[in-house]
């Protein structure tokens, strides 16, 4: 049982009026994940290939656990179970399977949803499982699931001949990783295009910083920027036509926009400060970025129409690496409090300026949001290496994704891919 022992004790009032209907106010409760049993249906007949819905159930349970909101269970007999997923795989022969599942509500004793998938191949079981996770998630939370998405990240491994860097791409749960780029020199700052078909990244393969864009499906890449000095922090605009980049060709690092059709550059910030890590607002009209123009790194908002920048963060002595939630309500960032100490992931509600620190390790960095805005994936230290961590936006659901090898850095969560 993963129960977060955070009781919220608040006064409770019971109002009663002779005429009005009785109303009882409920304000106390225990914050906890939804206990949900995911299992094969009793109807499922064990078939010749040894396939079972359990193969999908493992993936689904892992997805649901990973997102922080659920407490997946293997049996419906466990106490407190609120929902049950019953699945069935029928082998129709020749790598052709029919997969069906039901989502039940224990207390309502009704079927919330049920689906059947025809013509499924065994190799697609994982993918289908992620899809079922999405369906369950959306049904129970009202939020679109993000289990069928991917994550790009940089993996660093140590070999006899020094470090090796690679740009990797994996399913959101970390499975099925593929290597896009391998290099002896650092690879940095992967960034997804809005349609999820391309990645921009920085490579030092030629011993200097260069910005590339790459088609994910084919691995075909294109060099965009190799100006003297820094070429970094690419960020794709929501309409996919523009890439925000950081260049130091005229002195200190400044933010430029590059038109991807014409390759023309326009400088958007100036001065002697370091301006970096641009992140787009959903409407594409503003950029949030990190600047030390106020002395220490803080986050500013740049109005692209006026080129005027306004400071956004005031809580903490250090705020960097901004990213906006899809609803535009929260800023997620790397944060260090006024007292100094550790670097953590924090969120700031833009309307109120309220800052919540979500993680509590020593060095948490490079936050990236799931496309539904429900989860933050970030890099964190685990001994002498770096791994990925997951946290819900309220900071209550925490999870570490164990790295199979080496260190994992700078994750970039893809947009919805279908």
């Amino acid at each position: 049982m993963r129960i977060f022992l955070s009781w919220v004790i608040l006064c409770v009032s019971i109002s009663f009026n002779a005429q009005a209907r009785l109303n009882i106010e409920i304000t106390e409760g225990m914050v906890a994940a939804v206990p949900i049993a995911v299992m094969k249906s009793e109807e499922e007949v064990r078939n010749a290939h040894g396939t079972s819905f359990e193969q999908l159930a493992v993936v689904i349970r892992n997805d649901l656990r990973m997102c922080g909101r659920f407490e997946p269970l293997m049996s419906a007999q466990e106490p407190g179970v609120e929902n049950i997923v019953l699945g069935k795989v029928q082998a129709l022969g020749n790598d052709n399977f029919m997969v069906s599942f039901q989502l039940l509500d224990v207390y309502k004793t009704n079927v919330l949803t049920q689906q059947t998938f025809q013509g499924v191949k065994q190799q697609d079981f994982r993918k289908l499982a992620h899809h079922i996770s999405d369906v369950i998630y959306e049904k129970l939370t009202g939020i679109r699931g993000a289990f069928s998405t991917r994550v790009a990240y940089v993996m660093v491994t140590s070999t006899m001949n020094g470090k090796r860097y690679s740009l990797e791409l994996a399913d959101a749960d970390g499975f099925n990783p593929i290597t896009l780029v391998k290099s002896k020199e650092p690879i940095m700052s992967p960034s997804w295009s809005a349609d999820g078909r391309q990645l921009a990244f920085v490579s030092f393969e030629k011993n200097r910083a260069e910005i590339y864009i790459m088609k994910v499906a084919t691995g075909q890449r294109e060099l965009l920027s190799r100006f003297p000095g820094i070429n970094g922090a690419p960020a794709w605009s929501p309409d996919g036509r523009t890439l925000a980049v950081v260049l130091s060709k005229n002195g200190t690092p400044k933010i430029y926009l590059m038109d991807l059709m014409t390759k023309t550059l326009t400088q958007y910030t100036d001065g002697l400060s370091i301006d970096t890590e641009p992140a787009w607002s959903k409407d594409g009209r503003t950029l949030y970025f990190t600047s030390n123009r106020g002395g220490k790194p803080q986050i500013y908002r740049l109005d692209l129409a006026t080129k005027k920048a306004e400071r956004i963060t005031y809580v903490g002595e250090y705020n960097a690496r901004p990213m906006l939630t899809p609803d535009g309500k929260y800023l997620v960032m790397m944060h260090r409090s006024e007292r100094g100490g550790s670097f953590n992931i924090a969120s700031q509600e833009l309307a109120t300026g309220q800052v919540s620190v979500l993680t509590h390790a020593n060095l948490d960095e490079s936050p990236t949001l799931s496309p539904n805005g429900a989860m933050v994936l970030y890099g964190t230290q685990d001994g002498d290496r770096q791994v990925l961590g997951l946290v819900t936006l309220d900071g209550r659901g925490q999870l570490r994704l164990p790295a199979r090898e080496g260190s994992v850095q700078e994750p970039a969560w893809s947009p919805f891919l279908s």
Partner: protein
Amino acid sequence: MKKYTQSTYFIIALCLHILLAILLFLSLERTIFVSEDKPALSQKEIINAVVINKNDLQKEVARLEAVEAQKRIHEEEKKQKLALEEKEAKDKIIKAQELAAELEKKNEVLKLAQQQEQKKLEEKQQQQKAAAQAAKEKAKAKAEAEAKAAQAAKEQKKAEKEAQEAQEALEAQEAQRQQALQRQKQDEVTRHAQLIRSRINENWRKPLGFDLTGLKCKIDVKLLPTGEVLTASVIVSSGSVEFDRSAELAVRKASPLPMPEDPFVANAFRQFDFTFSSLEAA
């Protein structure tokens, strides 16, 4: 008229004087003798007598007679005048008397009128007095009647007030009793609501993964007499599917809810609302 009469009198008087003068002239010789006794006159006469012839004497006599006549005329005139004056005075007196009489008469009339007036006035006064008296009596009677009525009203009011007070006291007692009952019932309802509340709190698994601040939803609940949840449905959504679901589930999980034994109290729990909110403590 008067004037005319006076001039007529005057002419008559004049004729008489002339006649008298003729008569006197005729008897003058004897008179002269008689008048010889008068020394002054005789002395002078004497002187003149010598020179005066008969004619002159006659003339003189005539003159004297004329003077005398004149004198007499004067006197007569005087007399007449006096008489006239007297007459006038008399007339005046008469007139005055007449006037006086008239005045008297008038006065008497006036007096009579005054008397009548007085009488009338007195009568009027009498009447007024009588009226005033009557009014006074009437007012007095009225005042008395009013006082009596007021007294009666007062008494009635008092009686009514007492009755009302008694009624109110009764009602207050009844209300108190009702209130006590109501309070007792309400206490019982509150006690049971508390029981149910803690039961729901125990069963409320708040959703995890997002900020619950400000979220609030209302669940309409219908119970069976046994306390079993017949329906629990969201009537006011928080906007979060998870939050609404968690609230609905909390009610269903808590079924059956403890039911009060008193059917009167239990009635309040056949259908009611839960308001779920999570005002996160800072």
